[in-house]
C-alpha cells in the first residue's frame, strides 16, 4: 500500500472483530494522548512550555496498539515524539506535563523536556532526540534479553526520517546478525521534518530494507487500532518465541507540523484533509456511534472526563515547583550503587550461547 491509499474507504465492516468495551477502552487511550497534546500545545503558546514540542496527534493508534501487545518486562524505545508512548504505556500524565513545564515533578525531574521522556517502571526506555541513534541502543536491550534469557521484547520506533542515517543500519545489522528479539517499527508519517519521503528515499516501500538483515517484514496503513495491534502482535510473537527480528512499516500521518514552530506549509490542505478523513480517532468515534450505538452524549461525557484528567495534569504542572538548583548535578555519576538494583550482585552462570552464523574455514 502507498500513501495514496489513504483516500480509500474507511474499511467497514472492520476486518478485525472487536467488542464495544474493547473499542471504548482503546478509543479512550487514543483520546487521552490527543487531549494531552492539545493542552500541551496551548500551554506552549502561552509560554509555559519551551524548547521543542513535537506532537503525536494523528499517530496515537500506534502507541496504544503497542501497549496492547506488551508483556511485563518488554521495552519501548522511541524518538523525540514520545508523549504518546508514555501515556499509552501508563506514565502519569501529571509527571509528563510537569516534564514539559520543566518542573521538579516531571518524569525526569525537568532534565529532559519533551524530547527525552524516560519512565522505566512502565517500560518506556527512552525518547531519543538524535535521529537513528537509538536504534543500536534498542538492539543492545534486545542483546541483553538474549544474554539473560529474560524473554522480553524490545520495540524500537523510528520515523521514516531515520532510514537514511548509518546508525539505523548498524543497529539493524547487529539485530539481524545475532537474531535479537526486537521489533523495529518505522512510523512513516511521510515527512522528515519538512521533507517528503520521495525526496529522501529511492523507494516508497521502506520494508525492502528488511530482507538484507534477515528481518521478517510487514507493512500497514494505520487506520484501525485493532489492525495495528494485530500486526504488532504478530511481530512481537516472532521476536519473543523465535528471537526473530521484525521490521514493520506503519504508514501514518501527523496532523500538526513537525514541531510547534512548524506551520507545515510543505503540505497541501487537501492532503491533510484526506488523512484527517480517516483519522483513527475519528473513525473509531464514528464506529462507536454507528456500530455499537454509543450516543453522542456518552462520547461527550467520555471526552469531558479525559479533558478533565489532562487539565488536572496541566494544573499540577503549573503548580509544581521548579527543580532545586543543586538537582542539576544530581545523577551526573552514580553516587550510590546500592540505590540501583541492577548494579547489585548477580549469581547466574547459565549464560546462553550467542547464535552466530557458522563459518567453516575448511569450506
Amino acid at each position, binding site marked *: 500500500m502507498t500513501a495514496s491509499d489513504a483516500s480509500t474507504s474507511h474499511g467497514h465492516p472492520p476486518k478485525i472483530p472487536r467488542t464495544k468495551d474493547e473499542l471504548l477502552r482503546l478509543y479512550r487511550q487514543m483520546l487521552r494522548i490527543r487531549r494531552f497534546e492539545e493542552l500541551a500545545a496551548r500551554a506552549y503558546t502561552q509560554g509555559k512550555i519551551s524548547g521543542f514540542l513535537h506532537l503525536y496527534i494523528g499517530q496515537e493508534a500506534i502507541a496504544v496498539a503497542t501497549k496492547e501487545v506488551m508483556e511485563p518486562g518488554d521495552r519501548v524505545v522511541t524518538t523525540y515524539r514520545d508523549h504518546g508512548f508514555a501515556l499509552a504505556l501508563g506514565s502519569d500524565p501529571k509527571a509528563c506535563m510537569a516534564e514539559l513545564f520543566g518542573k521538579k515533578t516531571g518524569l525526569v525531574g525537568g532534565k529532559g523536556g519533551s524530547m527525552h521522556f*524516560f519512565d522505566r517502571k512502565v517500560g518506556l526506555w527512552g525518547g531519543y532526540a538524535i535521529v537513528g541513534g537509538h536504534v*543500536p*541502543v534498542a538492539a543492545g536491550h534486545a542483546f541483553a534479553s538474549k544474554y539473560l534469557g529474560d524473554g522480553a521484547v524490545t520495540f524500537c520506533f523510528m520515523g521514516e526520517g531515520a532510514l537514511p542515517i548509518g546508525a539505523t543500519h548498524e543497529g539493524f545489522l547487529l539485530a539481524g546478525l545475532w537474531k535479537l528479539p526486537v521489533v523495529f517499527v518505522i512510523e512513516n508519517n511521510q515527512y522528515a521534518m519538512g521533507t517528503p519521503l520521495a525526496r529522501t528515499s529511492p523507494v516508497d516501500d521502506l520494508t525492502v530494507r528488511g530482507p538484507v538483515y534477515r528481518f521478517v517484514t510487514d507493512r500497514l496503513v494505520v487506520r484501525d487500532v485493532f489492525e495495528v495491534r494485530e500486526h504488532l502482535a504478530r511481530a512481537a510473537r516472532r521476536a519473543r518465541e523465535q528471537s526473530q527480528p521484525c521490521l514493520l512499516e506503519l504508514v501514518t500521518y501527523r496532523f500538526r507540523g513537525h514541531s510547534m514552530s512548524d506551520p507545515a506549509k510543505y503540505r497541501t490542505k487537501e492532503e491533510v484533509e484526506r488523512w484527517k478523513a480517516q483519522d483513527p480517532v475519528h473513525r473509531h468515534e464514528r464506529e462507536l456511534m454507528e456500530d455499537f450505538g454509543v450516543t453522542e452524549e456518552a462520547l461527550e461525557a467520555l471526552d469531558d472526563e479525559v479533558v478533565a484528567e489532562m487539565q488536572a495534569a496541566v494544573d499540577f504542572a503549573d503548580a509544581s515547583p521548579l527543580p532545586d538548583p543543586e538537582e542539576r548535578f544530581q545523577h551526573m555519576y552514580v553516587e550510590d550503587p546500592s540505590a540501583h538494583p541492577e548494579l547489585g550482585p548477580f549469581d547466574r552462570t547459565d549464560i546462553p550461547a550467542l547464535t552466530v552464523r557458522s563459518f567453516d574455514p575448511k569450506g
Partner: protein
Amino acid sequence: MAILQIREALRAALDEEMARDPRVFLMGEEVGHYDGAYKVSQGLLAKYGEMRVVDTPICEAGFAGVGIGAAMAGLRPVVEFMTFNFSLVAFDQLINNAAKLHHLSNGQFTLPIVFRGPNGAAHMLSSTHSQAFDALLSHPPGFKVVSIATPYDAKGLLKSAIRDPNPVVFFESEVMYGVKGEVPDEEYLIPIGQADVKRPGSDVTVITWGQGLPVALRAAELCAEDGIDCEVVDVRTLRPLDEKTIFDSVRKTHRAVVVAHEWPTCGFSGHIATRIQEEILDELDAPVLRETYEDVNMPYAENLEKLVIPSAERAREAILRVAYHRI
C-alpha cells in the same frame, strides 16, 4: 610478583572480572576468533564463548550502541575499539548516549560500561590513525576517563573500570602493549581518580599520563644530569582528575611542566595548567610549560613524525626553562 606485558595485564583484568561477574562481556572487532588485534583478548573466546567474547562487524556506532543498550539492561559490557581513531564514527553513541543517559533519565538507568582501546600516535600510521582523544572525551561531562602506562596500573585500573557503575573511557597505547612490569599475583584494584607519583623529586613537577609517561621519565633522567630533580606525577585518570596530588607536588617544587601525547590547542595539558594557576598561582615560580604534539596533523614519514610527537629532549628544555636553568 609476575612480570607481565601491558597486554597481558589487561587480559588478566578482563579474565578475572569475567570470571567474577557473568554480566561482564567483551565486544569489538577481532576480539574473539582473531584473539584481538593487539592480542589483549587472546584465549578469552575459548574460555568464555561467543556470547561473552563477541566478534562484531566493522560498525563502531552499531556495537557501541549495543553496548550502551546492554549496559542499561543490566549487563557490564567492555567495548573494545581497535583504536580510538575508529571511535569517531561512534561519537553520537559515546557523547549523546553513554555520557548522558544516567543524568538525562534522572538516574533511572545506569551505564556500567567500559570503552577501551589504544589512543594516540603509534608509529608511522599517518594522521587518521595517530590521534589523541584525551581532551575530546574528557570534555563532555559524564565519562570517567582513564589512561594507563604500566602493567600494574593497567590491571588494577581496568578491574576498577569494569566494576565502576559509570561509563568509563579507558585509553591504552598501541606502542606500549609490550611494555613489561611487575604485577602482583594477588588480586588488587586501583581506584579511579588517583594519581601516582612515578618518580619523587624536589625541583620541578612533571605531570603526565599514558604515552607521555616514558617521555617524562626519560626527560627526568636527562635533567638529573643537569642537576635538576624532577617529580613525575602520572595522573592515570583524566576525569575525575586528582588535583590534590598535582597541587601538593607543585606546592613543593613551585614549577610544573606537562608532558602529553596530545595536541596543544584546547588540550588536557592546557586544562591542567589552567587548574594550577586558578588554584595555586602564588605557589608558582614560573609559568607552566607544556611538551605536546606539535599543532599539526601527523605525517607518515618517520623523521617528520618524530618531530611532531613529544620528545624527552624538548621536555628537558621545558623543565630547565621553568627551573631558570641554562639550557
